[in-house]
């Protein structure tokens, strides 16, 4: 498994390196989908990273697919790779075949409902802020219906897309759906909407760690090159202390990303997901502020490569539940227990 993980990570690293550029980042944000990049990523099998080999996938373990998501985060890859990975994982977990092409995910909760009427299945309502919804061929929906968790596949062409975006300019689109689903596109699922939320939060935590890796790298590089008062910024103690602080946050997020991968390797562990999303979210805020401070006005400009990363930090920390949401849940869980159960709870996490 280690060899396969390494091989796929190397392939992905080369692929991301070859296709990504600051210009591509800006173009994607302007609305151009990097089709060639997507095709190459799909060709390399990245979209099937979470699907077992027996089901036609690549069958990486959690460490393997997490490395891909972290790397994609570091490169600010403007593709729904993690979403498509998760969508295929959910399809296969329900016994449905994985799908080629761009997929996205949505939970049938709140404004979107998965309805069973006799033999027929229907999706009704609005799937809100669907990642890359306008570009997706299909939407994988997880919901509770007829007394069970279900997974369903719906072609996006059956819905009406209203475009939106997150702070990083990544598509987050509303899709209005009033459609009947093919019977063979709905199946009982081991994962309900809560699991989808946990998986989404975990992959965002991992992507945050990746973006943070790169933010640290850019910052270390910049303060080493930028000369003021006759010496590089990196020679000023005040700057060293700030970059060290940044590194501690990046490190905490790196550890949290490992927990996130572990948390959703099987049935999601919501305690670990909470810990990972809370910690990476907090690291993101501190790191973005510190990195911008170290970059001065340069980091604030459109032409410099920091903002695609920092704006992703600010966007991803909110998605699939921010620190407020997950920490309230985790805190409520703890406060329901006896105080003396706190340590056993932490030690078992």
């Amino acid at each position, binding site marked *: 498994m280690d060899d396969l993980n390494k091989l796929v990570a190397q392939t992905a690293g080369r692929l991301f390196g070859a296709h990504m550029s600051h210009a591509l980042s800006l173009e994607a944000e302007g609305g151009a989908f990097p089709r060639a990049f997507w095709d190459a990523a799909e060709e390399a099998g990245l979209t099937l990273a979470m699907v077992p080999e027996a089901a036609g996938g690549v069958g990486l373990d959690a460490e393997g697919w997490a490395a891909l998501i972290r790397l994609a985060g570091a490169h600010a890859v403007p593709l729904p790779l993690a979403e498509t990975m998760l969508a295929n994982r959910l399809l296969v977990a329900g016994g449905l075949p994985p799908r080629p092409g761009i997929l996205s995910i949505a939970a049938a909760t709140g404004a979107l409902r998965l309805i069973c009427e006799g033999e027929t299945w229907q999706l009704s309502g609005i799937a809100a802020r669907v990642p890359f919804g306008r570009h997706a061929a299909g939407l994988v929906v997880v919901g509770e219906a007829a007394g069970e968790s279900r997974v369903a596949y719906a072609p996006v062409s059956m819905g009406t897309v209203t475009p939106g975006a997150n702070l990083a300019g990544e598509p987050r689109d509303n899709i209005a759906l009033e459609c009947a689903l093919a019977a063979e596109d709905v199946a009982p699922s081991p994962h309900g909407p809560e699991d989808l939320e946990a998986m989404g939060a975990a992959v965002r935590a991992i992507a945050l760690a990746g973006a943070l890796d790169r933010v*640290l790298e850019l910052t270390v590089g910049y303060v080493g090159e930028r000369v003021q008062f006759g010496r590089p910024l990196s020679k000023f103690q005040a700057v060293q202390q700030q970059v060290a602080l940044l590194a501690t946050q990046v490190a905490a997020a*790196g550890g949290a990303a490992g927990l996130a991968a572990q948390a959703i390797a099987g049935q999601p562990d919501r305690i670990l997901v909470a810990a990972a999303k809370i910690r990476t979210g907090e690291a993101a805020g501190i790191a973005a502020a510190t990195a911008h401070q170290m970059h001065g006005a340069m980091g604030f400009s459109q032409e410099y490569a920091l903002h695609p990363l920092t704006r992703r930090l600010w966007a991803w920390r909110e998605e699939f539940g921010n620190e407020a949401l997950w920490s309230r849940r985790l805190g409520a869980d703890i406060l329901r227990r006896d*105080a003396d159960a706190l340590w056993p709870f932490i030690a078992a996490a």
Partner: protein
Amino acid sequence: MHRFDFPPAQLPEDAQALRAEVRAFLAETIAARTPLERAQSWVGFDADFSRKMGARGWIGMTWPARFGGQERSALHRYIVLEEMLAAGAPVAAHWIADRQSGPALMRYGSPAQQEAILPRIAAGECFFCIGMSEPGSGSDLAAARTRAEPVERGYRVNGTKLWTTYGHEAHYMILLARTTPGERHEGLSQFLVDMATPGITVRPILDISGAHHFNEVHFEDVFLPAESLLGQPGDGWAQVMGELAFERSGPERFLSSFTLLTELVRVLAEAPNTASEEAIGRLAAHLIVLRRLSTSVAGMLEAGEDPQLDAAVVKDLGAVFEQEIPEIARRLVACEPSLGASSSFLNVLAYTTLSAPSFSLRGGTREILRGIIARGLGLR
């Protein structure tokens, strides 16, 4: 560039059994300790408790059997340690010897030193203090001025060590002293010093809570026999740096305020609200992640790696976490902390508030650690 991965440490198969054994021991042994006493955990000195730990084989547990050890892994030791600290057990008596003096003796000690001392440490009968800091030498350890002047059959020591925790209880000190005058790093050597040696005077230094852990240790024409040299003459600096590495990244670096967190949960659980849930959830998340980082570093050390950068990061993050707990607690509960209060929460809040400044000083200040991190990143 260094990527912070912190891979999960492989926990030993008998981890759960060991944890259960330690919890049962603690439930029986320290049942009577009040929350205020528990809050003092790793500054709590109790020689009886240390002997009981020694009898269980929980001191020097990674050491070879011939030195009284159990030859268990660093992760076994980690489990015992974190259970002790989370429960607020009084570990101060054996703590320094178990963590750093014993390992230093194992690395640099002569066979005679090792045979004489290590089994007694493991039995919980022999306690150590650290002879590094001086009045003029804190973070700048290489500025140490205590002289160990070569004389016939040994050394004559003159000088003063400061902030010597439990110097008044310890049997031995590992002393850092200058054997060659004039130089900085090159002229330093380490010595194994019997604290009963004539010419040594220990004077108490009270801390800001009025408690006595620290001391000032004076050496006045103290004769040390040649065989008390630890390691090679002139290697003191390198040896001390190795010793300090044992001081970083362990669970003691983020559990110092854990008793307060427990008491805070007890108070908040009476009437939870959004603010308290959010604060407790956030602190729990930080703690879960810190444990991951810290156990990962323990795993790296066990695998023979030298994760200096990662260890410095864990200590810095841990100190920030420990220090913010009292500040968060006081914002969640309208109260006035007091050591004399009848409420355990208020006692512990008072004690932890007064202790907190030390968390980012001991074992390397925040600024020194961040300097180490900056160096690890290639900035200096």
